[in-house]
């Protein structure tokens, strides 16, 4: 990569959302803003290597995109296009007093993550409009045909326009729920990269986890006072830190207890821990992501798996169960119970959880039954987990554990 290429890539990361957001605000048209931003970046790729990089790349890109938009509107005005007026939409509403959180990029995030859009559409739109990924890149990431992904995004932009999904930060009373919605989109992007659900995909895809972290950092810059945004960022960093240790050279999942902790990214862990400490120091009651981040902080605090402070982890899960009493949270809590009170107690906790179709439930039962020496039942649970698991690395791990069970019996 030449220096100019690097500058363009960096400018793309740093400025794409800003350019799209500023143009959307000026033109009242997300579609046109996206197109003009893309053209401005294409012009940069053409011109910067010859003309040199402008002193302020962001301002250059915004100005270029603006000029292109004005040219386009003039051309269409000359042709007397019927839709000209639609393109000339402007902000008729008086700006609402939003204080320190008013930023065009934040408007963009909330519009892309609007609850009136389907979840997969919110994810695609956020990656395109805020993240600046191309349609082929997003299609590839989710193993969808490019044409289908293009249509999904086009339909979403048409709905935003026709139904008047607003381009603004939600009202204060709606803000907590809408932020939760944004965080859900970001976490789904991260999870798809971290534990791809499709057996055909690579087990861990760093480009998606990195993109999710980048987007979450942006949202954190825009909403620095929100504890859950900080919590989600910390959670992602502490999971991402373990990425290299999480899948073996042979493509098999390595569980937390068996990971080479020397391969963990200390820098990401330090940043994640600092965020968690800052949240604890705030004295505010933590939300779901903050508790999950704290649990991950306890895990990553132990230099050796045997040093893990399970009683603290269980206390955090107790807190989480009170906030979010879903079966999956109770499943994870039971795994902590096993470390403190033994597999038998944990197994009793799992009984009756409505998770028959969830592979991790059967994998957890299989492990507890194995520890109790109940091999036949353990094998049946592994079989069921393997049947349900979608991730290739996870399946490989489960098959090995099941087969170890077989050889132990034959011995």
């Amino acid at each position, binding site marked *: 990569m030449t220096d100019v290429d690097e500058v363009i890539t960096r400018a793309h990361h740093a400025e794409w959302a800003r350019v799209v957001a500023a143009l959307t605000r000026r033109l009242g048209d997300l579609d046109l803003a996206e197109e003009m931003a893309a053209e401005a970046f294409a012009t940069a790729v053409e011109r910067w290597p010859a003309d040199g990089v402008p002193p302020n790349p962001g301002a250059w890109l915004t100005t270029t995109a603006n000029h292109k938009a004005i040219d386009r509107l003039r051309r269409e005005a000359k042709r007397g296009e019927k839709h000209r007026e639609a393109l000339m939409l402007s902000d008729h*509403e008086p700006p609402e007093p939003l204080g320190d959180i008013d930023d065009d990029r934040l408007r963009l995030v909330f519009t892309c993550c*609007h609850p*009136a859009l389907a979840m997969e559409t919110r994810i695609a739109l956020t990656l395109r409009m805020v993240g600046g990924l191309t349609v082929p890149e997003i299609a590839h990431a989710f193993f969808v045909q490019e044409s289908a992904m293009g249509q999904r995004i086009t339909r979403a932009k048409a709905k935003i326009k*026709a*139904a*008047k*999904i*607003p381009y603004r930060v*939600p009202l204060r009373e*709606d803000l907590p729920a809408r932020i939760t919605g944004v965080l859900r989109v970001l976490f789904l992007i991260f999870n798809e990269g971290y534990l791809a659900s499709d057996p055909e995909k690579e087990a861990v895809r760093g480009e998606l986890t990195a993109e999710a972290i980048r987007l979450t950092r942006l949202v954190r810059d825009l909403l620095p006072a929100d504890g859950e945004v900080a919590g989600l960022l910390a959670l992602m960093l502490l999971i991402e830190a373990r990425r290299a240790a999480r899948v073996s050279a042979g493509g098999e999942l390595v569980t937390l207890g068996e990971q080479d902790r020397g391969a963990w990214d200390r820098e990401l862990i330090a940043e994640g821990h600092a965020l968690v400490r800052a949240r604890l120091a705030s004295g505010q009651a933590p939300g779901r992501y903050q508790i999950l981040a704290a649990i991950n902080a306890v895990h990553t605090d132990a230099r050796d798996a045997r040093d893990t402070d399970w009683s603290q982890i269980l206390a955090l899960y107790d807190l989480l169960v009170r906030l979010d009493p879903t079966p999956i949270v109770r499943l994870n809590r039971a795994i902590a119970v096993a470390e403190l009170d033994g597999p038998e107690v944990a197994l009793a906790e799992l009984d009756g959880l409505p998770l028959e179709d969830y592979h991790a439930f059967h994998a957890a039962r299989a492990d507890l039954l194995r520890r109790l020496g109940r091999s036949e039942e353990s094998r049946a649970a592994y079989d069921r987990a393997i049947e349900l698991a979608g991730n290739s690395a996870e399946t490989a791990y489960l098959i090995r554990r099941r087969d170890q069970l077989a050889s132990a019996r034959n011995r």
Partner: protein
Amino acid sequence: MAQYMFSVIYDSTDLATSEEMAAIDVFNDRLQAEGHWVFAAGLGGPDTATLIDNRGAEAAVITDGPYVETKEYVVGFWIIEAADLDVALKLAAEGSRACNRKVEVRPILSA
């Protein structure tokens, strides 16, 4: 300002109960007081529908019944005015609560 149609979706033509009617009245009063009101009405059931197709050269084809049989159908509607979808969705949530039925929100396209 944009206009939206709130279609009220239900699986029977049973009229609203007196409690539901009272809640709908309160909601309608609010729509009028706050300048959202355009129009609202209840509809006869699918059994009362007649389908007309006059696209051909022959005389209009008249068919008894709705254009498609569904388990749930539109039993009434509101036409309201709102600044944007966020405002419309909030109103629709209140409308759904008031009439105790599902509500589908669609924008009315402006010329």
